[in-house]
């Protein structure tokens, strides 16, 4: 499959995985305009780095690396710690549908809030964990060892659980 930036196959791969871009932008930007700028920057960098994808690892690994690197750099540059993002007032035109359980939505908003409060590197780690990536893949994306990934994730998870408990008291 051709992964040249302009090729249909490449575009299709990015489009199939565009949820990654959305979630990462939401996790690193509180402001809607910033999020759109970041999304564009990520897409541009994917397009620009298209030739660097050589198939030695998964396409999503490559995409996570680029999206997270761009998001962290963008966040450090802007460093606008705005209000917590809520899915309701949200950002990229998320529309509520019937049947979305209120409690789950509230938990999701809380989870987003807690993630946004993490340091930028911990945040990357947690997003990857929540995306159900294996420790090996997380290590490949972040550059940490698998043991380190496991230790850190457990520590962050404990922190998040503690925060949920405090809120739900």
């Amino acid at each position, binding site marked *: 499959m051709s992964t040249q930036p302009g090729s249909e196959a490449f575009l299709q791969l990015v489009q199939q995985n565009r949820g990654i871009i959305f979630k990462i932008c939401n996790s690193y930007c509180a402001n809607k305009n910033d999020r759109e700028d970041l999304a564009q920057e990520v897409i541009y960098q994917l397009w620009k780095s298209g030739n660097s994808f050589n198939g030695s690892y998964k396409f999503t690994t490559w995409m996570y690396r680029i999206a997270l690197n761009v998001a962290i750099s963008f966040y450090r540059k802007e460093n606008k710690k705005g209000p917590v993002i809520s899915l309701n007032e949200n950002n990229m035109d998320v529309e509520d549908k019937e049947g979305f359980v209120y409690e789950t939505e509230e938990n999701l908003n809380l989870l987003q809030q807690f993630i946004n409060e993490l*340091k930028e590197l911990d945040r990357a780690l947690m997003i990857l964990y929540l995306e*159900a990536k294996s420790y090996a893949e997380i290590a490949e994306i972040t550059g940490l060892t698998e043991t380190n990934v496991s230790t850190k994730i457990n520590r962050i998870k404990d922190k998040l659980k503690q925060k949920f408990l405090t809120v739900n008291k």
Partner: protein
Amino acid sequence: MEDMELQKIWAEYDRKLEESKVLNLQSWALNFRSFEGIQMQKAKSKLNRLAAFKTRVIVLGILWVLFLCTLIFFKFTWQGIIFNISAGAIALITAIAIVVYIKDVALIRQIDNSENILDTQEKLASLQASTIRIMGILWLQLPFYAIFFLTPAMLHDWNAWQWLIIILTTGLFTFAALWLYKNINYKNRDKKWFRILFNSPEWTSVIKAMNFLDEIEEFKKGN
């Protein structure tokens, strides 16, 4: 709360995204065809601009070194020996700073967002923090600016007071230069003198980069 529960909550995110129009390509400007135009606009990214700026500084630095070397080699006189030594030292220190700048430009060329996060972020932060390293090197020129105008004839005619003043001034400048060279590094960024010296807004991003380098180090350790 169970471990899996966090992932379950997050999975709702995907469901919500699937149900909504958020993944509409139009709303996200995900139409890659339009990026042909953006490519031109973004071709001069921040990193490219930084590389261009550093390259200009390198060119200016090389011209300055060449100018000093020309003075030394073509205008050499024994009367101007102290000037020649000072100019030589300043040229050498500038050349060292130029080497650091060249390394920075090479580092900019190496930055690849598709590498792992720690490597890429470390390179980016080091790039910003290197400005501090160059400042430390450039301070070493200080003592030579205190003596470059001296000539053997002048020194021959000087009285004890004049000798004392020049020795004290040069000694003080040398001490300050060596001390600053040794101490201008990010480990001292929280010290009061450091904050006074680098208080202006243009240093804020450099200081932040240093803090981030620390965070990366901590992050790697797994403590």
